[in-house]
């Protein structure tokens, strides 16, 4: 090793002294190919012929160093030591006998002076047939072949570009060759492109972009001097890939110096496809039939859109570039190919298979790298499938899809709001309000309608009968319990009844537990022309106050505060002939009938209420607890004509129309849903 380290090599290009193990010149970068020059192997890596190997072996056998020893003992021992004394045998100088050979000779003399050791080896050699020698030669050839392949790879990696890629039109050499191979495809492409697009196309395909494209196709193993036809074909048929390149990427990449008149495509690769060659194991036809090629497994859209690329791969497989390149660089070796044995042709076929597999693998890796770059550029979405870069299980892929969906839905509302306000509902409500207002206003402007001429209802008839029986001097207790909102409806019903009672000479006593009725009841008070002083008394405590004045009695120690407020105190109902409840609340009527009336069962009770309360009051009329009542449109003379009759009718009609519209819209929505269901089905 020390001797090797001390040795230096002179660069044939610049004369720089380099170490023996240097692959390139440290000064000019020239490849020092002499490193891979072996004995019995040419500098260009040409494999020795079997005849030459046999000659080497024969020369080893004829080595003087070996023959000196074997001549004294046996003339056949030279055949057993040719390889070991290979280096020394070439010297041909007995004075330069190595130490190890001397030690072997001494050992041979000591251990086997009778020559048994040599005889044993000789006997073994005799037993070995002549065919074994061919096996040795084959093994030796394999070693040499392996070394040659390794040296060839190293040389390809370090090879510099010697020609220019671009011609005078700016079209690369490899692209021109591809266009020559595919004239029809090129014409179609030109027909599709318009003038502006064509200009853009020329502008986009610059040298830097092409270099970047090649780099992306090859991946990390990119070397400007290692451009293959395969990558060039792929990039030429994928203009989208070049479009995806950003200027920053192209600028950030190192710019390689491309020597003039360089092309990496062998001259004889595609000019004349050799169809006369026998089908090799690497033939794509066999690949298509026997095994699935990698590009068909991926099923990528880019791959499917590149049938020409697949054809080029087939051509490449039929004419491996490495061997053809080798042949083009060293044409003189073609003369020696005829001397190859059948074994060597099999090795070549194996190499073709290996190269075919390597090409396919390289293409698959480049496509996967391209897919990864596209994925990194495109944002994730719920629609696109998660194409794994790695081999993923289905469960893992599903989880990745779920995670993608979650990320996509981030920031969006997924749970529907129960009462979501939309502008459409507000608009519809506004239209309804305007419609209702218009109808009511128009009806009020037109004035009251004709007399309804309705027959008198049974509760109204009972009320009319009860009031008609009252005589002058009878006291009617009028209990007010209604609100301002319903005052117009209540007063329209109660006013005629109270006026009739006043005309009959009936004494009216107004009481209320609602403060609001103190000023609302003013409309119900009869005129003072009858001579009775009418006022509204306030009874505090609501229903409890009525209960106190009706059910309770004054204690022995005096009047209670409630009694003092109300005249006659607990004798409120004692002098009363009839109780008339004017209320818009059916609950108040019910409470009166259930809590107050039982304390005076012989006292009849009448009620005037709104139409809304009619249904709830009616059962008490049918049970006899209520002697009669007026509600809604009771009918009969004096009750049919009302000021807001037409507005009432218009409102009823609008309500009916709206209800029918609601049914229609629901039916339409159901029909739409059914149609969608049919369409989906």
């Amino acid at each position, binding site marked *: 090793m020390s001797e090797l380290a001390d040795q230096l090599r002179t660069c044939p290009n610049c004369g720089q002294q380099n170490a023996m193990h240097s692959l390139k010149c440290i000064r000019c970068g020239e490849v020092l190919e002499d490193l891979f020059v072996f004995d019995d192997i040419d500098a260009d890596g040409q494999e020795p012929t079997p005849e030459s190997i046999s000659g080497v072996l024969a020369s080893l056998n004829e080595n003087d160093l070996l023959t000196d020893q074997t001549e004294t003992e046996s003339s056949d021992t030279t055949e057993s030591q040719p390889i070991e004394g290979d280096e020394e045998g070439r010297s041909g100088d007995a004075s330069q006998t190595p130490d190890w050979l001397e030690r072997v000779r001494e050992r041979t003399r000591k251990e086997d002076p009778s020559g048994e050791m040599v005889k044993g080896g000789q006997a073994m050699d005799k037993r070995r047939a002549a065919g074994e020698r061919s096996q040795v030669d084959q093994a030796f050839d394999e070693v040499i072949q392996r070394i040659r392949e390794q040296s060839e790879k190293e040389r390809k990696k370090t090879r510099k570009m010697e020609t220019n890629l671009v011609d005078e039109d700016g079209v690369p050499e490899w692209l021109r060759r591809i266009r020559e191979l595919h004239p029809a495809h090129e014409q179609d492409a030109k027909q599709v492109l318009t003038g502006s697009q064509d200009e853009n196309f020329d502008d986009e395909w610059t040298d830097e972009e092409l270099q970047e494209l090649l780099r992306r196709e090859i991946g990390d193993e990119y070397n400007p001097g290692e451009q293959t036809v395969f990558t060039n074909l792929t990039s030429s048929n994928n203009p989208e890939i070049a479009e995806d390149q950003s200027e920053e990427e192209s600028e950030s990449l190192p710019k390689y110096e491309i020597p003039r008149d360089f092309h990496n495509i062998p001259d004889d690769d595609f000019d004349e496809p050799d169809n006369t060659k026998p089908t090799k194991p690497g033939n794509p036809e066999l690949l298509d039939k026997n095994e699935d090629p990698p590009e068909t497994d991926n099923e990528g859209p880019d791959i499917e859109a590149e049938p020409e690329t697949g054809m080029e791969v087939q051509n490449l497989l039929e004419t491996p570039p490495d061997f053809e390149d080798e042949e083009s660089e060293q044409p003189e070796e073609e003369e020696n190919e005829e001397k190859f044995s059948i074994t060597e042709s099999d090795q070549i076929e194996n190499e073709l298979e290996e190269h075919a597999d390597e090409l396919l693998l390289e293409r698959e890796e480049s496509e996967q790298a391209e897919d990864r770059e596209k994925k990194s550029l495109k944002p994730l979405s719920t629609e696109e499938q998660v194409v794994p870069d790695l081999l993923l299980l289905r469960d893992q892929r599903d989880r990745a899809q779920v995670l993608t969906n979650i990320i996509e839905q981030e920031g969006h509302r997924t749970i529907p709001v129960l009462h979501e306000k939309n502008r459409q509902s507000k608009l519809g409500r506004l239209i*309804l309000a305007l419609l209702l207002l218009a109808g009511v206003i128009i009806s009020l402007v037109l004035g009251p309608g004709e007399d309804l001429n309705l027959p008198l209802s049974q509760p109204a008839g009972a009320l009319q009968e009860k009031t008609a029986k009252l005589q002058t001097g009878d006291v009617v207790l009028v209990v007010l319990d209604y609100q301002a909102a319903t005052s117009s409806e209540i007063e329209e019903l109660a006013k005629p009844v109270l006026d009739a009672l006043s005309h009959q000479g009936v004494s009216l006593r107004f009481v209320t537990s609602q403060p609001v009725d*103190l000023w609302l009841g003013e409309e119900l008070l009869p005129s003072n022309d009858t001579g009775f002083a009418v006022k509204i008394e306030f009874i*505090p405590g609501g229903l*409890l106050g009525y209960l106190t004045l009706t059910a309770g*009695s004054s*204690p022995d120690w005096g009047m209670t505060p409630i009694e003092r407020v109300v005249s006659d105190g607990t004798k409120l109902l004692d002098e009363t002939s009839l109780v008339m409840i004017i209320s818009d609340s059916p609950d108040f009527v019910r409470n009166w009938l259930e809590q107050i009336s039982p304390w005076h069962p012989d006292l009849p009770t009448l009620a005037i209420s709104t139409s809304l309360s009619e*249904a709830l009051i009616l059962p008490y009329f049918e049970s006899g607890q209520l002697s009669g009542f007026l509600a809604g449109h009771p009918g009969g003379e004096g009750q049919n004509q009302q000021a807001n009759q037409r507005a009432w009718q218009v409102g009823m009609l609008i309500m*009916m129309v709206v*209800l029918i519209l*609601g049914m229609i819209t629901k039916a339409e929505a159901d029909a739409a849903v059914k149609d969608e269901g049919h369409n989906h089905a």
Partner: protein
Amino acid sequence: MKDRQAVVIASVSGILFLAALFFQPITSSYLNVVLNWAIVLTAITLLVAISNLVITHLRYIAVGRRGFLFSLVFITAFAATFVFGILRGSDDIQYLRWIKAIQVPLESALLGLLALVMMSAAIKIFRVRGWSILTVSFGLSALLFLFLNLGFLPIAQNSTLFVVVSTLQRLPVVGARGLLIGAALGAVIAALRVLFGQVVENE
């Protein structure tokens, strides 16, 4: 223990009140006194509620809470009503008419809005609830009674039609009786729960 004291007091008062109602006229004077207590307490609670309402809106105005302008309107109306009521008395005709002129339009407008909401609900009931027995029966009955209440049918001239319409208009009594029975049962149960203190224990 404090909760139990309130429950005990309420329960005893309720039982005594029921006894006073049942044992008339012996307990009539006692009933009068108890009811006066209840009315006075109710009036005091009403004053407390009014005070709380006024203080709350004053706080809203002081803090500048969102919508404090409404609080300002309320305080102004309350103060004006209270001051004029104290000065002029609750029996003053002008004072009563003044309040009436404000209150009646306001509450009538609210009732009109209620009608509008009911119209909107009539549209939405089918869209929200879908087609069911309840919604279909509701729609048909509403249409029927709206049409009957229009007064377009000559029921006064046709006795047969009058009987039919009267029969149809008595149908709501069925539902009304159910409502009344349900309300009565609910009131009895609520009263019993209060008397036996189950409301507090459950809470």
